[in-house]
Structure formats: structure tokens, C-alpha cells
């Protein structure tokens, strides 16, 4: 398998060459073009129950699409949002993703939807977080450019800007300062990360784009 990321930072996409028998799993709707030698099948990732959980509580699709074929072939995958596509090698470790950031993974990686609890519910990102684990390659996408931080200590981030983080990092949900400043600063809720590990952030915020656009939506 040969995967190339093209178009970063503003319109990242994946160009994938599959050898005979290899498969790649993608977010539903991500395929933009493919060789006719490939076949697509839809499947539920991480079992029916967590798939259902994803449908009910998260922004993530219920089903994922799997592409492969006996003769191999070429396909392109693009996320719904304009921005940077990132690659991460998973080998026995875990990566947490916000719902909507998952783009694709190889066969050895499992992505499960996890109800993030009440604190995730208030984060504005939907209550579902995705837990990627296993052995293989993972690609995820951001809205805008990606800011990669090697954390050793604490970091406060607007929830709309969080993409992924390593499990060695803990987080709590809070406002920026007290309740008053949360309401008046225009900053939503924040995630307070602490620990040692990597955090991926995005330079744009989709709810904020929607909020800015709303006054122009007439009729």
C-alpha cells in the first residue's frame, strides 16, 4: 500500500494505491474517485453497539466504507472539511480523536466510538469521542491548519479547536476564567489538558464559522 497526502495545508486529501488483497477503511462519503477494479463494502466499525452509539450521540457516521480488490487499484479520499490531513502510525498505543476528525485507517486499526461522558456533552463537539487503537496507519483531518503541540504541563484549548490527543494526557472541561468571561469573551468551553504527550489542534472552528455565517442566511 502506498499512501500520499496531497494538498496540505488548506485542501488535504489522500491518494491511495492498494496492492492486491489490501483494504483501507474510510469515513463514509470520503471517496472521491477510484479504479473500477476496487470494490466497496459498508460495515460497522467497532461492533454494532458502538456503531449505534456513534449514530445517536456523535457527529460520526454509523457506517464506514471499506475499499479493496483482488487486483488492487487506486483511490482518492478527501474529508468534508477544508484543511490539513495528518498521518499517525499506531503500534499498540491509542489515539483519541474528536468526532468528525477520522478520515481513514489500515486494516489493523480499530476505531471505536466512546461516549465521552457529561463533560464531552458540554464541549460542543458532540458527546462522542473516537478511540483509535491497534497496529497500523491512521489518517485524520482538521478544519484549517494543524497545530501540533508536544505537551509537558498544561494547555487550555477552545473545544472547537481540538482534533486529537494521546492517552497519556488528561483533560477537564472548563470556561476561560469564570462564568462571566465565558459568556462575554466569545470563547466557548475549553479543554484543560495536562500531562505529557502530543496534542493536535486546528486553526479554525466550525461552529464559529456557522455562527458568523448565520446572519447572512436569509429565507
Amino acid at each position, binding site marked *: 500500500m502506498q499512501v500520499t497526502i*496531497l*494538498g496540505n495545508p*488548506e*485542501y488535504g*486529501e489522500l491518494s491511495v494505491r492498494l496492492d492486491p488483497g489490501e483494504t483501507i477503511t474510510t*469515513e*463514509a*462519503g*470520503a*471517496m*472521491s*474517485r*477510484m*479504479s*473500477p477494479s476496487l*470494490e*466497496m*463494502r*459498508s460495515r460497522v466499525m467497532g461492533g454494532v453497539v458502538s456503531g449505534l452509539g456513534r449514530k445517536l450521540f456523535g*457527529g460520526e*457516521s*454509523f*457506517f*464506514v*466504507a471499506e475499499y479493496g480488490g483482488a487486483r488492487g487499484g487506486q483511490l*482518492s479520499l*478527501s*474529508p*468534508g*472539511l*477544508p484543511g490539513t490531513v495528518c498521518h499517525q502510525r499506531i503500534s499498540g498505543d491509542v489515539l483519541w480523536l474528536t468526532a*468528525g476528525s477520522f478520515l481513514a485507517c489500515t486494516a489493523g486499526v480499530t476505531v471505536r466510538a466512546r461516549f465521552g461522558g457529561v463533560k464531552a456533552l458540554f464541549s460542543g463537539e458532540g458527546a462522542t469521542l473516537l478511540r483509535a487503537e491497534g497496529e497500523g496507519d491512521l489518517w485524520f483531518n482538521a478544519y484549517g491548519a494543524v497545530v501540533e503541540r508536544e505537551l509537558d504541563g498544561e494547555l487550555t484549548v477552545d473545544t472547537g479547536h481540538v482534533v486529537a490527543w494521546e492517552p497519556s494526557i488528561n483533560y477537564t472541561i472548563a470556561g476561560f476564567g469564570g462564568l462571566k468571561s465565558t459568556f462575554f469573551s466569545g470563547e466557548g468551553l475549553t479543554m484543560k489538558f495536562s500531562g505529557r504527550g502530543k496534542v493536535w489542534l486546528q486553526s479554525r472552528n*466550525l*461552529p464559529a*464559522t*456557522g*455562527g458568523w*455565517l*448565520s446572519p447572512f*442566511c436569509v*429565507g
Partner: protein
Amino acid sequence: MKIDILARGAFTSALVHLQPGERFQSESSAMFRASSNIDIDVTTRPKGGAGGVLGGLKRLIAGDSFFLSTYTVDNGQAGEVGLSPTLQGEVRHVAVSRAAGWTCAGGSYLGSDAHLSLDLEFQGLKGLFSGERLFFVKVTGEGDLLVNAYGHITEVEVDGELIVDTGHVVAFESQLDYTLSKVAGSWVQSYLAGEGFVLHFKGHGKLLVQSHNPKEFGGLLGRHLPPRRS
């Protein structure tokens, strides 16, 4: 006629240089600057193509604006017209020839030499149910064509067969055959995988595809917009 493509990337625009006697047309909302000697004629009747109110209506359904603007210079001097698309993405120049006509997906047409003929092709009832704007603008003749896209444009040389999601098709050489179909063996499978309709291309020719799908982005952004008042 000379066309400059400015600022490649997410915010491309085009600058068309006109000599006396030359005519260029674009979707009416595309012009954002013009030299003072440019005369703009708004019409529903593209030269040689479907004109009149019906033609305009067909164009409206195709995702382009109702009217086409035609630009000429009115004082015998050279002039220029700047065109910018609504979508954030690339603009490409395509040389249309008698040997190779081009077909643009509904919203991808930006402008063309007014000597080129434009005609609309309706993709059948299936197109209506798919929720996609399956109208194509067929461009024939000899001259310059400008297309726009959401995201980056990649030129693919089809040699044999290729499957493309309808939301990613920008334009293609008209000699390519295509059928509207589903990606998986069954409609249920296709629907669940989030892939509605795809175009199955066959033959030999150039195809322009866009990296991103405006419908996908619209769907994600739409959740953060106020509900539409009916």
C-alpha cells in the same frame, strides 16, 4: 484574447484581456472588476445555445446563475475583466477545440469565449432523486473556457475506466462516455457508506476533478446554521 490565472490555490481568480471585437461571457455574478471601457450586456441567450427564458431557467436549475454577462470593449482599445468564482478553490483554463469539446458539471462553469456554444444536458430522472445537481453544460467550438472548483483541481487522463463521485466532477472531454451508477453492488450498501451516485467514466480523455465536495462541506456546516424559513 489572453487569460491570466491569478493566485493559484484556494483563492484563484481570472483576468481576461480583451481586444476590440472579442467577446467573453461569464455567469453574471462572476465579474468583480473591469476596465472602464468594458461594456457589459446581460442576457439569457448564450450564442448558439439554448436561449430565452427557458434557457435561463435551465441554467438556473443547473446551479449557474440565471443570466450570462457578455463583455466587449466599446472604444477600440484593449480592456480587461476580472472574474472570481463564489467557491473557494482553483480556477482552470481549458482550451476547447473542434476536436475536443468539454462538458462542465453544473456549478463548475465560470466563463468562456462568447464564440463557444453552451448547451445544457439533463442527466435524467435519476439525477433528480440523487439530490445532486446533475445538469451538465456542454461546451463546443474553438476557444477559451474557464472552470472553477471547490478545493484543488487534479487533471486525470482517463485511459479505460474510472469511477468518480458526482460531487467531485468538475469537467471532462466530451468524448468520454459516462453512466450514472452506484458504487457498491447494492443501493443499501452505497447509501450506508455515504456514497450516493458516482459517474462511471469509460474511454480516453481528460477529466478534471476537485479535491473537495461542496455538498459534504455544506452538510457539516449546515448543522451550525439556523433552520431555513420556508
